[in-house]
């Protein structure tokens, strides 16, 4: 009784779980492929996931997904809402640990390290795999403190000037420096939505992660702010590996090198972004791209 209650509570906040409860509800006329279509694997991957299954309590949110993410690559995860793409992303730096009823099976490798190895340190992992969330969530501190938070935690700077340098570099990389350099001591919550999101990106790259996960970073922003962030992602891709969940196919087409299409917890098709958008192989992918559901 109690778990059922919890499950509904979780389902209310996590779309993937909500969908997983009633997978039959969606149009089932088009069969799923036996295996992921296209090229889910690549040489020299930064991260590689194999046979991933994720459960919320008794219901399954992700079915047997295998995927590689190459170095300095931007991969877009697209699909209708509740298809498990955000869940998958959150598994990649173990943010799903904070949800009690979430169970993850399968292997996640970050280069040579198994992410779900009990011996692996979550703190260290999250320093290497950063995350930017759907809604900008700056801490209620000054802009400077927001960016300095991570480096301070991990002891990345010993001197004040080193910290200043990290903050400035991160803000520059996030394209925010010129806008905020005169008011670093003002609260981060006072910025506009787009600026806040770039502040969050600056905050996560301040600890020099290897991978940056972005969970629909632009869904709460207006088109101009979105354009700025997309530009930023493009610049960042030279230094970082980026996985971005997005709802907008145009965005996926604009920023990513590869695109993975999820449908109801299954990875249907992965390919070069161009290929996916110009010549989708599977009927579901095509249906989604042409806008028949979403």
């Amino acid at each position, binding site marked *: 009784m109690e778990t059922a209650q919890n499950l509904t509570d979780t389902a209310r906040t996590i779309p993937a779980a909500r969908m997983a409860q009633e997978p039959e509800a969606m149009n089932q006329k088009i069969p799923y492929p036996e295996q992921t279509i296209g090229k889910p694997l690549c040489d020299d991957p930064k991260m590689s996931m194999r046979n991933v299954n994720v459960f919320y309590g008794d219901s399954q949110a992700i079915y047997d997904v295998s995927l590689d993410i190459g170095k300095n690559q931007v991969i877009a995860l697209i699909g209708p809402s509740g298809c498990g793409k955000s869940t998958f992303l959150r598994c990649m730096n173990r943010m799903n640990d904070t949800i009690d009823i979430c169970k993850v099976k399968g292997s996640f490798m970050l280069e040579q390290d198994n992410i779900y190895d009990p011996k692996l340190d979550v703190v260290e992992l*999250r320093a290497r795999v950063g*995350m930017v969330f759907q809604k900008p969530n700056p801490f209620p501190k000054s802009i400077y403190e927001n960016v300095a938070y*991570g480096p301070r935690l991990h002891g990345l700077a010993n001197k004040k000037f080193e910290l200043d340098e990290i903050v400035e570099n991160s803000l520059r990389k996030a394209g925010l420096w010129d806008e905020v350099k005169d008011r670093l001591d003002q609260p981060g919550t006072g910025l506009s939505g787009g600026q806040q999101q770039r502040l969050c990106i600056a905050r996560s790259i301040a600890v020099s992660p290897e991978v940056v996960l972005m969970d629909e970073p632009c869904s709460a922003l207006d088109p101009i702010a979105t354009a700025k962030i997309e530009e930023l992602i493009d610049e960042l891709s030279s230094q970082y590996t980026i996985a971005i969940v997005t709802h907008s196919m145009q965005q996926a087409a604009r920023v990513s090198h590869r695109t993975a299409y999820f449908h109801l917890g299954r990875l249907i098709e992965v390919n070069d972004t161009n290929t996916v958008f110009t010549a989708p192989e599977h009927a579901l992918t095509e249906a989604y791209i042409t806008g028949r559901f979403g």
Partner: protein
Amino acid sequence: MQAGNLVLLLIALGAVFYFFGWRRSYAVSAPLGGVRHLHSLPGYYASLAAVWCVLPALALLAFWLMIDDAVIRTNLMASLPSSIQPQSQVDHELLLNQIRNVAGGALNPAFVPAEVAAAAEQLNAMQAKNQLMLNIAFISIAVLGGVWGWSRVQPRLRARQQVESVMKWLLMASAMVAILTTLGIVLSVLFESIRFFQKVSPVEFLFGLQWSPQIALRPDQVGATGAFGAVPLFAGTLLISFIAMCVAVPVGLMSAIYLAEYAHKNVRAWAKPILEILAGVPTVVYGFFAALTVAPAIRGLGESMGLTVASESALAAGLVMGIMIIPFISSLADDVITAVPRAMRDGSLALGATQSETIKRVVIPAALPGIMGGILLAVSRAIGETMIVVMAAGLAANLTANPLEAVTTITVQIVTLLVGDQEFDSAKTLAAFALGLMLFIVTLALNVIALKIVRKYREQYE
């Protein structure tokens, strides 16, 4: 009680007029073709008749009871023969009491002067007359009002609107009780305090270091004036409150954090209600616990370490008061901590912060205004807490910061000054009200600030 009987009678009368109003509403509607041709439902006409019966009579009763005592007293005093006319205010009260006692049968008329006995008889006669007049006036107003209400029952009468507006006024009057209470507090405490400050200067009261409110029985006695310097009381109150907060803030805050952020939900489901039991225990029980268990234990412990500990040490009272306040702080802190959005925690965790780092550097700073508000409310509660200190703290006004000594507090002094029979004019009794005024002002200020902070904090995350 007479007034009680009258009210019961009035309820019966109201029911009678309700019935007649109901009957008449049907009667007047019959020629029109049934009740649906009335403006309102019959029940509203009936209620209107009952309202006309009850409300004016109640108003009369209230007014009468308010003034009749004073009227009788003035008439009685005026009618006294000049031989026993009182000279001073005090004599006046004494004489009045004497007459009342004789009239009430508590004092044998043989023991008092004949004039007083006569006055007592006159008082009895006046009271009987007063009661009779009240009864007649009350019943006739009720009946007249009811008949008037009944006679107004007409098909076109907007009875529903009228009844509803009466109800609305009653509802509003209920809401006004809150304001009247505040007003009553302010006035009662303020007036007595002003009378106190006419006897003792406010400067002495606020800054004097000596507190010994004993008033001499005879004016020529040594130390006749008493000393009313309240600083030792303020200091004692602060000392005990400080000890209480030293216990309650860390324990309350940390247990709220642990239960909200770390504990398994089964642990939380058990531990939270058990901790909240502490909030439901009456303060007199804490007082007993402090006086009979904690204070001797502390004393024993202190003496085994070679310290002299007073048997009514501030430490014991403060410690137990702290325990009492733990659930107060922890539930307020729990509220504000769980109000911090999950996104904040996720943001910090995703950067690789450990859980305690997230709590210390993100959650608590974000919740700080709310926590501060809660702590201020707790301080105000500690300052105003009475029973624990009455039972476990001392009576002697020591000006000390040593928690092992006995100190006294504002509330203890209010209780000791007012419990028991006193004449109501001595500086000693009035001092209690002056202390009450200080207590009210300080707690009110703390509450206003705290509620403002908490409210602002809630708006921030809503």
